[in-house]
């Protein structure tokens, strides 16, 4: 019968819909003030909701983790997979533990060199079987510096030592009386080295030297973010700028400057920013400026690797 494959297709679609509904719903449920709740890391798809004993959809290979043992082996697999895929620099195994709610996920976060990591994963599988129960009693295993190893509620990795912590722009009161100075530059010079990837419709908006906004001193007010300054200066100089607010990272994402958009120079292209030669690992709306900061907006054609900002993509070394 023809009806059978159709039915199958409909059933698969339905299951997919339900799964996406459940998984998608969890992103929004993450309570802002409750760090213990389940957390997701932006770069890695290893979010696992064990309490649901449900489909570990993102992990791909291990779709359904019903029995606790299976979950643990799944976690192990995951970490070894990551080992193969990623630079040995760092690995985060996601998992938090919460004792107050049975709805919250449990897990542990680790950050170690690969060898230790594997060992941890192994020991983990031996020790923490009870932790897969709905109400875990065991504290997180192998978290030497818990405060340092977590992502914050907007999925930001720990900021390296000596670098400014992200500040939520909603909490900031801009003091218009305190005018301060910083420098701003916007450049798309990397496109010139990647002309074969470049969208030729956009040739007319690409300056011959790639510089959209030459480095100059700009005024900002106490408490303003990198994004605020960019928006004001682009408006003032009648340079096109499009952005979109991304609630999950609580920051504005710059889609295009001067009609040079993300993906215009290959699928790894887009806008990045650095302040005082450091590419922050959080959004521009959360970087609060200090007097004398040097802001640079740069177009990348290769996820930041061509402009020295690959640390942000890989995670902090």
């Amino acid at each position, binding site marked *: 019968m023809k009806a059978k494959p159709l039915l199958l297709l409909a059933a698969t679609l339905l299951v997919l819909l339900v799964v996406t509904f459940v998984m998608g719903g969890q992103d929004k449920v993450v309570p802002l003030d409750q760090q213990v709740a389940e957390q997701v890391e932006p770069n890695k798809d290893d979010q696992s909701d064990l309490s649901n004993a449900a489909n570990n959809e993102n992990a791909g290979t291990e779709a359904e983790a019903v029995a606790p043992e299976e979950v643990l082996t799944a976690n192990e697999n995951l970490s070894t997979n990551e080992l193969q895929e990623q630079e040995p620099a760092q690995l985060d195994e996601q998992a938090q533990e919460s004792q107050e709610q049975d709805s919250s996920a449990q897990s542990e976060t680790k950050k170690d060199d690969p060898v230790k990591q594997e060992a941890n994963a192994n020991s983990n599988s031996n020790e923490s079987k009870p932790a897969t129960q709905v109400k875990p009693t065991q504290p997180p295993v192998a978290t030497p510096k818990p405060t340092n190893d977590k992502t914050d509620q907007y999925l930001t990795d720990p900021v390296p030592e000596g670098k400014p912590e992200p500040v939520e722009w909603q909490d900031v009161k801009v003091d218009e009386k305190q005018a301060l100075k910083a420098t701003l530059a916007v450049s798309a010079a990397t496109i010139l080295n990647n002309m074969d990837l470049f969208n030729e*419709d*956009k040739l*007319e*908006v690409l300056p011959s030297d790639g510089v959209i906004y030459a480095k100059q001193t700009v005024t900002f007010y106490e408490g303003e973010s990198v994004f605020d300054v960019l928006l004001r200066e682009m408006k003032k100089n009648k340079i096109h*700028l*499009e952005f979109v*607010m991304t609630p999950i990272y609580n920051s504005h994402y710059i889609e*295009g400057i001067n*009609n040079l958009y993300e993906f215009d120079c290959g699928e790894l292209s887009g806008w990045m920013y650095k302040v005082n030669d450091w590419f922050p690992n959080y959004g521009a709306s959360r970087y609060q400026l200090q007097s004398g900061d040097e802001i640079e907006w740069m177009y990348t054609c290769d996820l930041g690797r061509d402009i020295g900002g690959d640390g942000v993509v890989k995670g902090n070394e």
Partner: protein
Amino acid sequence: MNKVNSFASLHPSILFIYFVTVIGSSMFFTHPVLQSISFLSAFVYSVMLKGQKGLSFNLLYMLPLLLFMAALNPLFNHQGVTILFYLDSGNPITLESILYGVSAAFMFITVLLWFSGYNAVMTSDKFIYLFGRVIPVLSLIFSMVLRFVPRYVAKAKEISFAQRGIGRDISQGSLLKKGRNAARIMSILTTWALENAIETADSMKSRGYGLPGRTSFSIYRFDQRDRLIMGIMVACIVFILIGAAQGMSTMRFFPSIRFTEVSMFSIFVYGAYLLLCVLPILITIQEELKWKRIESSN
């Protein structure tokens, strides 16, 4: 044959090719000249087909739809070099995105209008005549599906009239009563639909649907006039395709608006497209003039 709609008296294959071509080209051609040609002829033809009712329908529903769709785009799309003003959020409104919205809205309306013409001209018997042998099941389902909504609306109206005669229409009684009457009409309609489905199946079976060696009757002939019109159409389509291959049919919106310059050849392409789009109108007018002449000579 209805003398107002003499285009429909052409051979089904011509009609089908015609509508596939105009609908397809309306979907893909963004050049303003080609787009306005297609829109205007689709509009005029739909009014010709449906008269006053078609005109008021177009103005009442199509116009708001057009405005809505045109206004929607610049709210979400901020590309373009010509910044007109800024939204409160800080994103710019650009001329290019507005024009893109207008163009997309016109394209949408044009395709809808052509489809309304298709529905009036390509009746299901013609469709089955064309595809009954190649894809028998699909063409039957297709024609039944297309008939589904109009048929149910007509039946619902019939039931509603009958119920009004005994004071039980949706327009009669208190609010609660109205609701109950509506539910009753719905129930009658559903009962009829189920029964009708069985009857249809029985009827098809008793007439030998699906049996081998069955022939079907059709009154369509590919005559001299069809050949002439087919020739004109194919010539036009070839011209348009050559033009499209040279990039004359599209325009670029972002980051700045650009389309190919008007040249001698592009004027020919526009002419061919114009001829193709007004073909049904021309045939209808010509037939009407002929009819008048015969009438007055008697």
